[in-house]
């Protein structure tokens, strides 16, 4: 499990995947920090992205030289989760339909 900023980005990716595009990045960030308040110290410069759609805010975060290395670490971790999560979800859905 990544630590610090990398873990914060990982949790933001997970929350964005679950919540979709109907909420703002600020709501995603608030939700992550409610579940993991210890990450708040790393989130201070992210609140300015609050009004943006989550995917747009994450893209801007990735363009930041300060955040980019942490985002890459989080991305590697998240990709395994993403594929595994959806595979399991599809299997459940297929069984339910049968």
């Amino acid at each position, binding site marked *: 499990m990544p630590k610090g900023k990398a873990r914060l980005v990982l949790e933001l990716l997970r929350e964005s995947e679950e919540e979709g595009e109907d909420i703002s990045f600020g709501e995603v960030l608030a939700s992550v920090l409610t579940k993991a308040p210890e990450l708040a110290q790393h989130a201070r410069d992210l609140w300015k992205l609050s009004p*943006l759609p989550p*995917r747009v805010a994450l*893209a801007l975060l990735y363009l930041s030289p300060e955040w980019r290395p942490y985002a890459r670490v*989080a991305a590697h971790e998240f990709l395994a989760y*993403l594929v595994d999560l959806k595979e399991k979800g599809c299997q459940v859905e297929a069984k339910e339909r049968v």
Partner: protein
Amino acid sequence: MINQAPGLEEFEQTDLSLFILETNGILLGNDRSYVREISRFERVHIRVSLKAGRPETFTQRTGAVPEAFELPFKAIEALLDHGVSFHVAAMTDPRLMSENERKELIERLAEIDPFVAANLEEEICDPYETTIVRMAAYGLDPVKFFTRGIEFAEREG
């Protein structure tokens, strides 16, 4: 070129904070100078909408030649090279895209850049009125699709 479509120049004159430009990536992948032009605009974000994870399904869904399948990926590479704010979206609804194809699409994106793949916006097909009308026009039964549609994708493998 972009300066022949003055929308972005006009947007720059406003105090609006964000302009999201939606594209299928065909033009941007075919001519990187579009991307270079777009990179001049700091408040513009690009949403690249991918239609498929394989050339044959790309042709099936869009009617375009299979060779054009590569163009959106070239657009993504160009956007990365020029430091443009963008993310990728794809209709990975399991009723439309098989799990194998979805994995191939994510893996292809991850080869280009892992964060671009991780930030993928996965879309689900909702039964909007316009969607139902268009499905019917293409000979698809919307009721059958929205109740048993996963079988369409499962047949593809």
